[in-house]
């Protein structure tokens, strides 16, 4: 029966090509627009560490030394609090993080010096965030402890300086220091660059910069402070920093701490530890408030920073409103089409077709339109994504059509056209055969 309905549907569609083209086009444009924006939303709002993110936490304390009206802890920590919490090793894994820029060259590489972004972190960073290596390994906890002059570099930098060859053991000149390469990352592009997300609530929704590339150089935290001394900038300061004093001892926040806690018991244990640490620092007179600690998990922290740019969210709303209008349009046209065939339907009913049969036949025709619309929508989605990749935004190169979105495109197209087909098909199946036959 389905084959017969299919044949009827194709015949009917061929009979009025303009109307068919209009409906297919409307569905295709609506699907194309909503799938493009949905794909972007999906890629930007996804979990950067699937399966692990629920174990990754971002502890915060309030290191201000005088009572402040601001009600939330700063987005980063001061050096002393961060290093204290890190040294306590109370979590399953913990990594300090801060970013700076410095001049980079390599001996025997005949290229001009470049300003590289450097991530100062500790050895747990790589296993905690499942960072993939192409050559070599991460440095060890001993390297952290003895301030080893070692570095891990990105695959981009390795391609640029060493044409992608195994550069483990070679030397980099970072500012004025010799640093040995111990590892080269495989291409790694987390979306967003989650470990560095801070200050999202001050960005007016313009958060595209959270989707940038990871740094080119990774160095042990404490040795990097020596190598790039004076090259670090604070996130913010609660008092004016004294120019003669190192950032480590200034009233400024500029270091972040990430911890991995594998069970609920450990999470609540760590929360208690944070509270007791703040209490102890208050007793020592360093903190003004002991009650202002907080610990989000990774996804909560991303939500708190509203990482998805507000333009992208607005575009998604817009696209779905657009799809809704295209649907109303298709309902109207299908209704017109089916009712125009009232005579034909009347004959089928008189010859014994049940209402359900007429209804099914109409739905098959609607679904066929949906399938064609889905194909067109897929092409338009590809076009839309291509256009977005050409935009000068940080996330442009992340944008691609993945298999699940490919499937969803067709599912959405068929669901949309079936939805659009239900009302007209119902209406058509209720045509009274006698009345139609009389007018033939």
């Amino acid at each position, binding site marked *: 029966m389905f084959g017969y309905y299919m044949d009827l549907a194709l015949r009917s569609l061929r009979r009025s090509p303009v109307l068919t083209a209009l409906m297919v086009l*409307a569905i295709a*444009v609506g699907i194309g627009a909503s799938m493009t924006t949905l794909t972007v939303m999906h890629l930007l709002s996804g979990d950067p560490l699937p399966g692990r993110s629920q174990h990754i936490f971002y502890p915060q304390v309030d290191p201000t030394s005088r009572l402040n009206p601001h009600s939330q802890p700063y987005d980063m920590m001061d050096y002393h609090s961060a290093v204290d919490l890190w040294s306590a090793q109370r979590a399953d894994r913990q990594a300090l993080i801060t970013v700076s820029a410095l001049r980079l060259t390599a001996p025997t590489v005949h290229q001009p010096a470049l300003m590289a972004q450097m991530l100062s972190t500790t050895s747990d960073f790589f296993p905690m965030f499942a960072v993939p290596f192409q050559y070599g390994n991460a440095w060890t906890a001993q390297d952290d402890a003895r301030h080893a002059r070692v570095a891990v570099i990105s695959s981009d930098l390795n391609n640029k300086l060493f044409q992608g060859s195994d550069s483990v053991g070679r030397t980099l000149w970072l500012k004025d220091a010799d640093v040995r390469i111990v590892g080269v990352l495989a291409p790694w592009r987390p979306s967003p660059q989650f470990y560095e997300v801070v200050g999202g609530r001050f960005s007016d929704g313009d958060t595209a910069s959270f989707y940038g590339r990871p740094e080119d150089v990774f160095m042990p935290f404490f040795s990097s402070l020596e190598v790039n001394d004076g090259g670090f900038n604070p996130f913010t300061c609660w008092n004016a920093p004294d120019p003669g004093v190192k950032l480590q001892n200034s009233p400024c926040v500029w270091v972040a701490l990430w911890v991995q806690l594998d069970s609920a018991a450990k999470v609540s244990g760590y929360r208690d530890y944070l509270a007791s640490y703040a209490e102890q620092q208050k007793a020592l007179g360093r903190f003004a408030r002991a009650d202002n600690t907080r610990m989000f998990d990774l996804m909560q922290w991303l939500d708190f920073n509203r990482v998805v740019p507000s333009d992208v969210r607005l575009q998604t709303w817009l696209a779905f409103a657009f799809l809704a209008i295209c649907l109303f349009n298709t309902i109207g046209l299908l209704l017109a089409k089916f009712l125009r065939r009232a005579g034909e339907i009347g004959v089928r009913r008189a010859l014994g077709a049940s209402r359900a049969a007429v209804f099914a036949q109409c739905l098959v025709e609607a679904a066929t339109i949906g399938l064609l619309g889905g194909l067109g929508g897929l092409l338009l989605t590809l076009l839309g994504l291509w256009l977005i990749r050409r935009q000068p935004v940080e996330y442009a190169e992340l944008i691609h059509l993945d298999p699940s979105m490919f499937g969803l495109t067709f599912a959405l197209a068929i669901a949309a056209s079936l939805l659009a087909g239900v009302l007209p098909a119902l209406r058509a199946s209720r045509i009274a055969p006698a009345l139609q036959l009389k007018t033939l």
Partner: protein
Amino acid sequence: MEIRPIVSSLRRHKITAWLLIIEMALTCAIVCNAVFLISQRLDRMNIVSGVVEHELVEIKVADVGLHPDAKARVEADLAALRRIAGVTQVGVASQLPLGNSSSNNGIMLDPKQKMATINATMYQGQNLLQALGTQLVAGRNLGDGDYRDFDSVMKAAADGDPNDARMPKVVVLTQTMADRLWPGQSALGKQIYLGPVPITVVGVVAHLVRPNNFSLGSEYSMALPVRLTGEGDSSYVIRTAPSERQRALKVALAALKKLDPKRVVLQKRTWDEIRESYFQNDHAMAGLLVAVCVALLVVTALGIVGLASFWVAQRRRQIGVRRALGATRADILHYFQTENFLLATIGIAIGMVLAFGINLFLMKHYELPRLPVAYFPVGAVALWVIGQLAVLGPALRAAAVPPVVATRSV
């Protein structure tokens, strides 16, 4: 034109009529809001910068001052840049208008205030206002005697005496900021406080936009006489004739490289490029919204054509009967036009309510202002025009139905 027969005929096609009305209402609501969003973006993009936009070039070199002789090096760089033919002004800037990176400060009118009155951005650097070409409307510009070295300012701040002679004493700010702080009065000679430090206003410029954070007040900007000698984030600003910019940039880079071949150039661009990159998202979004509006109107128009054609085909005999009974072609044409106008009007009325609702949603989630009443007619006119244009084809076909149809196949 009699409306009653149209209404009673529409009553017999309730579903189709309502579909058309809903489609038009949605389109109207979205077009109203989209046009409003577009105008918001355009307003943002047309912001007055207050600087000589087409005459400026920025060069940022790394390691500007991480050396002990930083001060001498900056002076040598400035002297070299000044010698370039065609360069009229050279300055140092801690930040640039629309440069997207800024240093901001709470401004108080009384040092004992708990909360700052406004948050203003702070431009610093040698000869900066002259290089940017801001337009002075009152008082004087910052002079050589006003300048303090960055290092000594920071030392003075750390020592904690607000009246320390090493602190900057004067400031030039924008008219907007002056009007906000002292409405209706002259700002000259008035005092502002940066924390506990008193600073006297000596000049007012017509306009100077912030580097970013427009939501804090796009023109709350001031220039402090601080000589930058160390901080790595400063750039050189070169002012020259618009046609000379690319050449000046090339020559300036060569001159800076000659002074120290090892340094890294972080940024070399004209100010026009700065503006373009600052607004590139707005530009893309405005373009997208225009495309969406056009696509929506086209889809709606096609929907109207489709349904109107169906109605015309369905009522062919009826039309023939009317023609046979004496209705003119114009009567038939007007019938369909009036019918469409009626549907569009109902659609627009519902659309207005919807538009208002969408605007409330956007206000809540995207911090947009209320939709001005002036935007409602935009959607209405667009829909009426689109409706009439779309229905014209089918209506003309209806008008061409000959009266003889009435006599066939009865």
